[in-house]
């Protein structure tokens, strides 16, 4: 079970790092149906401003979801809302670190707000945003 609102404090952070591969990009296309050629067509991609295929923006958000759902707050959390600003493209081979940090909490309403962001291997921000979460409640007994 994850952390309750009482167990979480402003400044608590957690993160997860993963190198993005073609497997991830093609799987994400298959799951979501998002076969935008920017993600799955090399010939098209070389003509774009990015010059090569890029990962789906949602891939960065999914890494954030992993940190929220498995670490902070962790299992039992309910996702209320998210804001995601996409700052830079993620390329195949990039190593992305997703970090969440508690910025505010409301014990009475059982809500926690976290800054959520992803950086690449050069420390550049690729996604920045915020998540509003309902942490798990203590189980009776």
């Amino acid at each position, binding site marked *: 079970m994850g952390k309750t609102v009482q167990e979480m404090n402003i400044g608590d952070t957690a993160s997860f790092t993963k190198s993005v591969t073609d497997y991830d990009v093609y799987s994400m296309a298959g799951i*979501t*149906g998002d076969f935008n050629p920017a993600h799955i067509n090399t010939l098209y991609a070389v003509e774009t401003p990015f010059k090569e295929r890029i990962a789906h923006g949602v891939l960065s958000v999914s890494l954030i*979801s*992993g940190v929220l759902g498995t670490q902070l707050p962790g299992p*039992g959390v309910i996702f209320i809302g998210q804001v995601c600003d*996409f700052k830079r493209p993620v390329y195949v081979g990039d190593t992305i670190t997703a970090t969440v940090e508690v910025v505010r909490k409301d014990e009475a309403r059982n809500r926690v707000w976290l800054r959520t962001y992803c950086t690449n291997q050069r420390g550049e921000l690729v996604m920045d945003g915020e998540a509003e979460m309902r942490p798990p409640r203590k189980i009776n007994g």
Partner: protein
Amino acid sequence: MGKTVEELNVGDKASFTKTVTEYDIYSFAGVSGDFNPSHTDAQWAQNSTYGKVIGHAVLNMGFISNVLGTQIPGPGVIYVRQTIQYKRPIFVDDTITATVEVTQKDEAKNRVWLHTWTVNQNDEIVADGEAIMMPPRKIKR
């Protein structure tokens, strides 16, 4: 190539429908590392708020991203920002329809705002939000 800001009009709509299966949830876990037991542990999920396994909330954003990236505005678009509120869980075998509708545009800044939402087979809102997109520019010929 997708639609330019000049070609998009307030009220333009597009959507995508998909039935969510265990394949999607397990693949999404494998891509994101999000093995939150609400998604991948049926035993644990039995005792959770929803009584059974639910899909990752970010799947909603995946379906929205699909419509934005392949239909409106379509290929060549750059994802600037997504806000999303999660209203209901996705259960296995739910049929989710993601819809985007142009609500505002700024030709000078090359930006389009879209209302983005998903509903399930009972027409209940699952996720609701807004996207800001930078549509593709006309290619010089």
